[in-house]
């Protein structure tokens, strides 16, 4: 049931107080939405002129003051997909364990504690970890693989959270019905629970993918580089990435003034990518909600 107090009319002093506060609440909400639109509009209006087929499909040229951002797009896509390839199986497996098997034992509370804290670790600390562990100890160096692994462990809590929520949303009656028919637990999970939760899990994964694509700090020391002339051909190659590209063009670059339009263009491509994925997920989810309500 959706609860709504919209239609209440209140008179007198109490009505005035209410009006005042409600206006404040509305303004707060409006400011946040306006901020969103301000950022998006700003980037779109400035960045649109930079966008062209060449921009999307060519290599950067002339100290990255001309040409396109193809390697950044390819790099970001491979980093994000690589991250998902790592975090999806682990995350979904963990969620299934926690939601379907785990009781309230010691191990489970330690697992939950670890996940909650993992979710709070700052992204730059993930970067340090990736540098020390993947790049150095596992000798991956600065590479696509190291970057994807770092992003992967970072998005793990997101995937676990989303998958657990999707599994929780599967009515217990499905599980009871299946078990009541003499299905084993694993059969119940595979045939009833996971299929019902799958759309929700996928939605969460798209969101995690979008988030991984937009992260900068974790790949700064682990996967992304200022410039590389080739598209990655193996997982041990260094890559360029959209967020890092924006950062270096805007602050660490050599021709910051001249490359403004490229910065806007790159930012536009990045937010189009990330918001596009989010929008997909949101639409998918609201469809699901509507469908499941029937």
């Amino acid at each position, binding site marked *: 049931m959706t609860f709504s107090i919209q239609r209440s009319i209140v008179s007198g002093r109490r009505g005035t107080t209410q009006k005042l506060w409600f206006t404040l609440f509305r303004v707060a909400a409006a400011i946040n939405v306006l901020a969103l639109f301000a950022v998006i509009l700003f980037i779109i209006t400035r960045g649109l002129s930079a966008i062209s087929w060449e921009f999307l499909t060519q290599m950067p040229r002339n100290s990255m003051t001309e040409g396109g951002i193809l390697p950044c797009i390819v790099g970001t896509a491979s980093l994000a997909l690589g991250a998902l390839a790592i975090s999806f199986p682990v995350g979904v497996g963990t969620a299934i364990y926690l939601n379907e098997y785990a009781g309230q034992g010691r191990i489970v509370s330690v697992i939950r504690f670890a996940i909650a804290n993992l979710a709070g670790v700052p992204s730059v600390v993930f970067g340090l970890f990736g540098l020390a562990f993947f790049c150095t100890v596992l000798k991956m160096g600065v590479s696509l693989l190291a970057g994807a692994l770092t992003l992967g462990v970072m998005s793990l809590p997101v995937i676990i959270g989303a998958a657990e929520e999707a599994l929780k949303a599967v009515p217990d009656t499905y599980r009871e019905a299946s078990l009541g028919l003499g299905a084993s637990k694993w059969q119940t999970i595979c045939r009833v629970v996971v299929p019902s939760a799958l759309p929700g899990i996928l939605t969460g994964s798209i969101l995690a993918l979008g988030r991984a694509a937009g992260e900068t700090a974790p790949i700064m020391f682990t996967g992304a580089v*200022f*410039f590389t002339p*080739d598209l990655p051909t193996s997982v041990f190659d260094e890559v360029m990435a959209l967020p890092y590209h924006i950062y270096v063009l805007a*602050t*660490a670059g*050599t021709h*910051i*003034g001249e490359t403004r339009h490229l910065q806007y263009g790159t930012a536009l491509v990045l937010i189009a990518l990330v918001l596009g994925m989010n929008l997909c997920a949101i639409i998918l989810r609201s469809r699901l909600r509507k469908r499941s309500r029937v």
Partner: protein
Amino acid sequence: GRLVLKGSTTVLPIAQKISEAYMAAHPDVKISLSGGGSGNGIKAVVDQTADIGNSSRFIKGKEVKLATGKGVLPVPHRIALDCIVPVIHPDNPVDDLSLDQLKQIYLGKITNWKQVGGPDKKIVVISRDSSSGTFDAWKSLVMKKERVTPRALTQPSNGGLVTQVATTKGAIAYIALGYMNKEVKAVRVGGVKGSAETTLNGRYPISRPLFMFTNGWPKGETLDFINFILSRKGQALVEEAGSISLY
């Protein structure tokens, strides 16, 4: 073949010009080029993740130790000269500062432009990140090893300094000559204008050589590339990139 260059942002415009010319002459060679600062360049050679490490300062004792510990012998190649130019916002009427005034400003002792004959405006001191070669040079040539005020804003690159000075009325920063453009105004140091001429004749006090480091004596492609920079044609490109040729 493939060459990987990393490091100093000061050297970057030179390396860029040279690489493009070199790749035009040798279509089979791919050159990958990235910045990050001098420390990064030397680190890359030590870690053997780059064939050439660009640096706007000489290698430090600690770095040599680290390198030899890994069996790497960093060899420096002087490829150009550079002068570091203090820059301010174009609207700022100040056009000459003594070395000591610069030092006092960067020590945080002089905080207003009127103390150096300018308008009544707070000075926004902008510096390079502490691990850059330019910062290193500034520290030894201007600061005489004293510490830059912690109030100084920092930027990770020459380019970053230029844009920030261009948009900040009270700003002062120092950049490599190659990055000078119309958006910022160069300040004379003790009456001497930073240029190729004053650097070569030794009158300009804040200048330094630029280096490329290789692991051991260069061979093959790398050697070819270094030779190209040091050639007459290469040095012409150095001039074009805004730095100062060796000869």
